[in-house]
């Protein structure tokens, strides 16, 4: 008789928590964010004032390296939430590991968009204000390399860092996921530049785009495999 109870109505799904994750990433990663903003804007402005040729050659290549630092907030929120039991709480209320993973990566990308927009905006304003024009090669370098590479490098660093954080025991300092992430993050820019330089000539741009694409695919594959490679227990702190 008791089992005849009417089925309870399905409650609405849990909120995405994306907005609050972004806000927390700004606060938690504020030191990295400050360093990345200060250095990248300073580089863009100083080189823009000093030499148009150097600006066009170096700024597009340097910015993605500093964007890796700018995007650390998302990874920091992830590692903190895992260790402090926030994910344990959120999983109990129906959020999925993939949602938590995506929130952290997207939060990192929002941080990068903010700092990159600021550095490029200020740098290009100074560059153009000094009487220079944005040439075709500079525009191509920014569009094909600087912007996509900044996002790819950060997504790669955050994804690898989150996997590292999920499969390892808590570590502090340089060998922690947050300590290693900047080193991992410079890998995509370095490899891509190396491939572009090695191919050279007319196919250099194509090689850069293809190398970038490989890193994007790696990130997407790792995100898609979260539920399979990282069982829920990986999101729990040690009991």
């Amino acid at each position: 008789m008791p089992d005849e109870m009417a089925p309870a109505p399905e409650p609405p799904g849990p909120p995405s928590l994306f907005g609050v994750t972004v806000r927390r990433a700004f606060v938690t990663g504020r030191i990295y964010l400050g360093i990345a903003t200060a250095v990248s804007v300073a580089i863009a402005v100083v080189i823009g004032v000093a030499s148009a040729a150097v600006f066009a050659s170096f700024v597009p290549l340097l910015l993605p390296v500093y964007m890796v630092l700018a995007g650390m907030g998302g990874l920091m929120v992830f590692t903190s939430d895992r260790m402090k039991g926030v994910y344990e709480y959120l999983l109990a209320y129906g959020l999925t590991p993939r949602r938590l993973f995506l929130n952290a990566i997207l939060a990192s990308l929002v941080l990068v968009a903010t700092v990159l927009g600021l550095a490029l905006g200020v740098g290009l304003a100074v560059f153009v204000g000094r009487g220079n024009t944005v040439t075709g090669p500079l525009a191509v370098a920014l569009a094909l390399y600087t912007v996509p590479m900044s996002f790819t490098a950060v997504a790669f660093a955050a994804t690898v860092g989150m996997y590292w954080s999920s499969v390892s025991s808590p570590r502090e300092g340089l060998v922690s996921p947050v300590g290693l992430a900047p080193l991992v993050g410079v890998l995509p820019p370095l490899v891509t530049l190396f491939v572009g330089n090695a191919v050279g000539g007319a196919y250099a741009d194509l090689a850069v785009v293809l190398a970038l694409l490989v890193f994007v695919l790696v990130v997407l594959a790792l995100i898609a495999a979260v539920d399979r490679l990282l069982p829920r227990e990986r999101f729990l702190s040690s009991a």
Partner: protein
Amino acid sequence: MHAVAGGDRPSRIECRGLRAGYGHLEVLRDVSFTIDRPAVYVVLGPNGAGKTTLFRALAGILPARAGTVTIGNDAVDRPTARDRMHYLSHLDGVPEGLRVREALEFYARVERAAPSDVDRVLDRLELRELAGRFLAQLSAGQKKRVSIARIFLRERAIYLLDEPTSNLDPKLAREIRGLILELGRERVVLYSSHNLYEAREIGEFVLVIRDGRLALFDRIENLRGSRFVVGLRLLRPHPAVADYPRQGEYFVRELKGPEEVPGLVRDLETQGVLLREVREMENPLEELFG
């Protein structure tokens, strides 16, 4: 199969042959019990026995490797089952980077509670003064208070509370125990603690986990230690108790059971002993830890 019958079904928890663990490590082995009436159920066991793993499995966080967990009429991984439970882990679970009020608003979004509930809870847990402070600036006890506040944002049928009073100062721990007792009148509260006196004070039933198995499920009042020892604290020294052994300020006396206490008190008062306090010196729950 252990069972407690009665009560309404939304607060029913049924575990059958539950096995759960991490990686190659199996922590819970064949745990079976049914809870079907509102009360405070204390989960006890030594460190590493599997208490936290049991809470995680009941909350649907850790999937069962074998067996089933049913909440009400639903499997624990169904949203309807999750919607009946509050889960408070042994960790604070406070989201860094937010202020206290923002953290409660964060919880309120997850719980689908109204914004007015945040204000109610700020007052109920005496967090109003801390509302504007970042969580990183709080002490461990204050963080725990914020963490506990979330279970009062919305009423649910089942409360899974893993060490809710650890890190709390005695005053707040007492208040939280009061709130838990209040909850236990109409809700199922599963509660783990290392404080056996606290467990005895608020629990009606006890579940003992040992080596990943349910070693005991019974009413706490049914547990009787092999010895019943009372401590007597006097207003002033008296020769009638001079030959009693001492434990600190207490003169101790072993009795056959609590039913002998009134007779002992009567005898001593007849002899002119002025008693300030009579207390039980040994907690039968201690023996459960073997």
